[in-house]
């Protein structure tokens, strides 16, 4: 079977986001960009499934600006077999909404026929947590979100989900869309020989129009601002002072 893994290029999780002075968004000029950490986990899982002999091919897809090529090269170096870049924006500040991303991925899925689409549960920039669910609805496939364990069987995938009260296990019929959570695995680093090899792996470039998908924006961004910041408080001298502060604020 084939596995499709969408990977997003986002502001690196170690870099503090700065709001642009004109309030139009986050400044992404000359800052370190990386693969969305959740997508890395999804890709790692796809590679492990393939290593166990349960998949033949892994296709990584990225949607955004031309520079997303770098993210796809990283995906290829980690172990994806080929990559598709959908150039949907010419400015990195134009974030493509999950609904459009889902439309693009659905069109690719219909062409490629994967059995499984493994997505990160959320992008750490817009924090929507929506693409996998929307994609699954568009395709009318089964949906398993927030996976912390995935077990591929013959015609279904058994997924343990991290939910508010604990863990829930469900069986999702294949083809399925699964979104992954933090504790599923720890992604590998690409080795130098694999980075070299990745340069020769196929990377196809297409446009949304090639897929018959129109880019829409349903949520107009009116403004972006910094939240009220908290002031650093008081460092106390001893435990008794802390006990006093705790007592003042319990049930207060």
């Amino acid at each position, binding site marked *: 079977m084939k596995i499709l893994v969408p990977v997003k290029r986002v502001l690196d999780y170690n870099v*503090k*986001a700065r*709001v642009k002075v004109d309030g139009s968004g*986050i400044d992404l000029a000359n800052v370190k960009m990386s693969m969305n950490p959740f997508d890395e986990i999804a890709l790692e899982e796809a590679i492990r499934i393939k290593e166990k002999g349960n998949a033949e091919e892994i296709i990584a897809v990225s949607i955004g600006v031309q520079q997303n090529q770098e993210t796809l090269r990283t995906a290829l170096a980690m172990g994806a077999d080929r990559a598709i870049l959908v150039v949907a924006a010419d400015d990195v500040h134009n974030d493509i909404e999950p*609904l459009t991303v889902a439309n693009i991925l659905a069109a690719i899925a219909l062409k490629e026929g994967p059995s499984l689409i493994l997505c990160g*549960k959320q992008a*750490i*920039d*817009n*924090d*929507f*947590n*929506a693409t996998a*669910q*929307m*994609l*699954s*609805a568009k395709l009318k496939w*089964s*949906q398993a*979100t*927030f996976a912390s364990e995935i077990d591929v069987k013959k015609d279904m995938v058994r997924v343990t*989900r*991290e*939910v*508010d*009260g*604990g*863990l*829930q*296990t*469900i*069986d*999702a*019929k294949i083809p399925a869309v699964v979104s992954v959570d933090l*504790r599923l695995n720890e992604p590998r680093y690409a080795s130098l020989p694999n980075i070299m090899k990745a340069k020769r792996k196929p990377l196809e470039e297409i446009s949304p129009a090639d897929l018959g998908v129109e880019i829409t924006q*349903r*949520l*107009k*961004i*009116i403004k*972006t*601002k*910094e939240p009220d910041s*908290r002031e*650093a*408080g008081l*460092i*106390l001298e*001893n*435990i*008794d002072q*802390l*006990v006093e*502060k*705790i*007592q003042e*604020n*319990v049930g*207060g």
Partner: protein
Amino acid sequence: MKILVLAEINNGELAEDQTSKTVSAAATLGKVDVLCASSQCSDASTKITKMENVENVLVLEDELFAQSLAESYSETLIDTINSYSHVFAPSSSFGKNVLPRIGGMLDVMVISDVSKVISEDTFERPVYAGNALQTVQSVDKVKLISVRTSNYSAVPLTGSANIKKIDCKSNNTLTTFIENKMQTSDRPELTSAKVVVSGGRGVGSKENFEIIEGLADKLGAAVGASRAAVDSGFAPNDWQVGQTGKVVAPDLYVAVGISGAIQHLAGMKDSKVIVAINKDEEAPIFQVADFGLVDDLFKAVPEIEKKV
């Protein structure tokens, strides 16, 4: 404007705090109907009828909804949902699972994790782990909104809504429920507790986490954890506070052996008072804490527990 709230009901039990705070957010726009779909609705629907600003409680009782699987829920209820202009759900694992699927079906963008309802089409939501707040205006025909419930208070129980049974037929051939492994606890719920005591990697082991739990119990608090503590197996996953865990805003948040990474702050920086205990005076948690103690947690926490 017609407003619907999707009540969160797990196995017949109403998630009262989440649902009530979602009603509170939705009611800033007007009176609301609440959809109560579960395997058992009588207790839940009775509670909901008392919530202020609720006009009708739509009740659909069916075994199919026992686990609120996304497919069962969205396929069955899509027509009901589509007859409203605004649909609100809590931004819990239930809301996050179901609402975007409904969005995909209706070709409508979901507005996730809304911290403030500004007007009928304009909403504020945090992005970048809460490092920025974005105001967005939706052009969609239906507004699908998941609510960051920690930003709202529960509604008073002064209402007297009508119960209306609805009837929809469907099945779900795509997913099958296997089992739940839920944490049971006598402590208050993490997302609604007035006091939260959280432990991080500094706590060191699952056994040592009892120090955190001991202090929490003394204070009548819920227990939270950082991702590092959950990943290391010190604490169960549903205790995680942060960008990808739970968002809490108690009166008092006590962070013990937690460094204060932005992803953790995202889940607790709206707490009224933050107390931090960390042996490293440079730890970033002290930049957001109202009161800090630079000390070894193994010495400090048991002593605090004794004295409070």
